[in-house]
């Protein structure tokens, strides 16, 4: 965690010589500070760290229906790395990520920029409308789209048949990934738009004045002033999206009910871990899969951050 380092760095180092004599007020303040963050750390430990350690412990064992539990070392992990179902599920969400995230964030960015110019009439209502899908629970959203996709009496299929285009099969094994991309994009555009929009609102207006004086039009301002200024927010949304993609669960698990032939048990890594634990009754292996998935997410998120940092540094040097 970077909290403690940040706090320490902010403390003035000038107080070094009379080190012993930390004033009592200061000490009291410190104690109060620790007391304030204590509830967070208690819950953090009990709800996150302990389960994490416990499932790490579980992942080192092997439990069979016959013969019970036995220590297995890293056998579950090496099995996972050779498990074609796990690997293909990671590959599938990787593909999902590469296609869905740029589309979703692109649309979110454009919408945020349009709303920010204030030119589009009814910007408040627009903001709300775009944000509403995020307020709809994923379960409800998936059920709703499941109905819209329905090949027999889904409205899309009916319209398509009415104009003589035949019945689109959104729920076939070939098209299901695209259908899923559509659902998730619909759900999360508003959320990402709000983050970017909030960042846009915090840009100091002097920058715009300067740009205007330099003769920049609205598009040029957006490209050269606004987008660079909100880049940290965009990186944040990218990281959220990476995590969200790898953790896809509710959508595929609900679509499985209406398209069981298209959504396999290992459609996404999370869904696979769930099925391993509750259908195959291989809790230990599921724990290993969950851990590996966490590592994959951490690595990819870190790589994205690192490349962003590099880029910043490179630009800073210029």
């Amino acid at each position, binding site marked *: 965690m970077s909290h403690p380092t940040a706090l320490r760095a902010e403390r003035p180092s000038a107080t070094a010589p009379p080190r012993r004599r930390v004033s009592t007020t200061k000490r009291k303040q410190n104690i109060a500070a620790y007391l304030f963050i204590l509830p967070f750390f208690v819950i953090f430990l009990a709800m996150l760290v302990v389960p994490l350690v416990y499932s790490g412990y579980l992942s080192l064992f092997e439990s*069979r229906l016959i013969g019970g539990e036995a220590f297995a070392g890293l056998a579950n992990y090496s099995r996972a790395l050779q498990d074609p179902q796990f690997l293909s599920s990671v590959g599938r969400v990787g593909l999902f990520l590469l296609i869905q995230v740029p589309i979703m964030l692109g649309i979110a960015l454009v919408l945020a920029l349009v709303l920010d110019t204030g030119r589009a009439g009814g910007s408040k209502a627009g903001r709300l409308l775009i944000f509403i899908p995020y307020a709809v629970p994923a379960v409800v959203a998936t059920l709703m789209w499941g109905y819209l996709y329905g090949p027999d009496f889904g409205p899309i299929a009916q319209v398509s048949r009415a104009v003589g285009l035949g019945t689109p099969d959104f729920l076939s094994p070939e098209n299901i990934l695209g259908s899923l991309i559509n659902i998730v994009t619909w759900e999360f555009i508003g959320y990402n738009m709000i983050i970017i929009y909030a960042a846009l609102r915090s840009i100091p207006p002097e920058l715009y004045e300067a740009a205007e004086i330099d003769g920049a039009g609205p598009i040029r301002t957006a490209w050269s002033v606004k987008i660079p200024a909100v880049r*940290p927010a965009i990186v944040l949304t990218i990281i959220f999206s990476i995590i969200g993609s790898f953790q896809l669960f509710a959508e595929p698990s609900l679509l499985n009910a*209406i398209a*069981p032939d298209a959504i396999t048990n290992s459609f996404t890594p999370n869904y696979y871990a769930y099925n391993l634990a509750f*259908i195959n*009754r291989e809790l230990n292996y599921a724990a290993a899969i969950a851990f590996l*998935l*966490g590592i994959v997410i951490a690595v990819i998120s870190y790589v994205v951050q690192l490349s962003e940092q590099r880029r910043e540094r490179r630009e800073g040097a210029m």
Partner: protein
Amino acid sequence: MSASRTARKLGVIVVVGALALTACSPGGGGGDEAATTDDITAEQREEALSTPTELTFWTWVPDIENQVALFEETYPEIDVTVENVGQGLPHYQKLRSALEAGEGAPDVAQIEYQYIPSFVLSEALLDLTPYGASEIEDDYVGWAWNQVAPGEQVWGIPQDVGPMGNLYREDLLTQAGITEPPATWEEYATAARAVKDTTGSYISNLGATQAGQLIGFMWQRGAKPFGYDGEQTVSIDVNSDEAKEVATYWTDLIQEDLISVDVDFQDQWYQGLASGKYAGWLTAAWGPVFLQGTAESTSGLWRAAPLPQWEEGDNVSGNWGGSSDAVLASSENPIAAYELAKFINNDDASALSLATEQFLFPPQTSVLENAEFADQESEFYGGQKVNELFSEISDTVDTEFQWLPFMEYVYSSYEETIGTVIAEKGDIAAALDDWQDQLVSYAESQGFTVE
């Protein structure tokens, strides 16, 4: 830039959180209490039933409170709480969690026949023989009793069964020139062609991911895909010659586009039954009432018949579905719990009302022979005595069919290997080999001896 640092920090927090969330999963082990093996005496039974006792009963049978009320009237000291924790898989998941946690499990639970072995394996069920269960064996049709008592022990009391038959649209078949329901599978294929050509309907639908239906067909063919000795040995033979014969038959019909492969129990499928997209449904004895509710607008057009046969003149059927009520080994009041499971499914009034009010298809001979049940004429089926027909079919179900102690995996693996092939109209017989391989390797990895 401070905004970017915040963003990065947030990113780190989120990543840690994500790690923690994905890594959460329950675990643990549980001990099981050994059951007593001495027979229960009449005094013990008397005492247990006259002591104030609270029982918990997990089931998803609708309105079972009515039958429970009958039980409580008879034994006023016993207080039963009925809980519906979900239907099918969620029910079993909660049951297994409670058993592993060592607390919170009910005294009596509804368990479908195919899941009994998995609970026997974890020693979660009480052997009911010392409580007098073997005495009521003759009250049930033989094959249903074999489902709850494959060996010496009795693991549950049969509640309902699903012997398979053929429900079909008489009007559509007549239009295609078929006046008698197909007696053999060969005739069925011919009829399928005629129906498709003249009416455009599929003669029936094979649910792509519906393992129960295809396993029922294998059951009829005499295949023995599964076996379990109650301990550590299983036999897996889902790609036997008989099974492949069944698979090839359906592959051919599907590839000729005479049978549709829509996923069943979905809106689209309900619509298909009501709209005449399917001119029939090869289903179990619980199907007639279900269909009546689903395809109301086609009332009077349907008829029921036995399944087509593999050999002319044969009369065999398979089973699809059905459940029992079992007593958990962890129950602190096993005698009262057994009496509850028995009463619900054995008391004349209770068992009859399960059949006439909840429309469960009975395994009790007393109900099957009861005029109130058997002579019921159904308008939906043009006044046919559907119950009587399925009673007759029930006598023709092969008696020795068994299950594996890990049917959850069997079904999910079916969906993966067979379900996708059916949906793609591929070769089901070839997919049976993949299914076989997956099942064997899972069984071996779980420590079973595979025969």
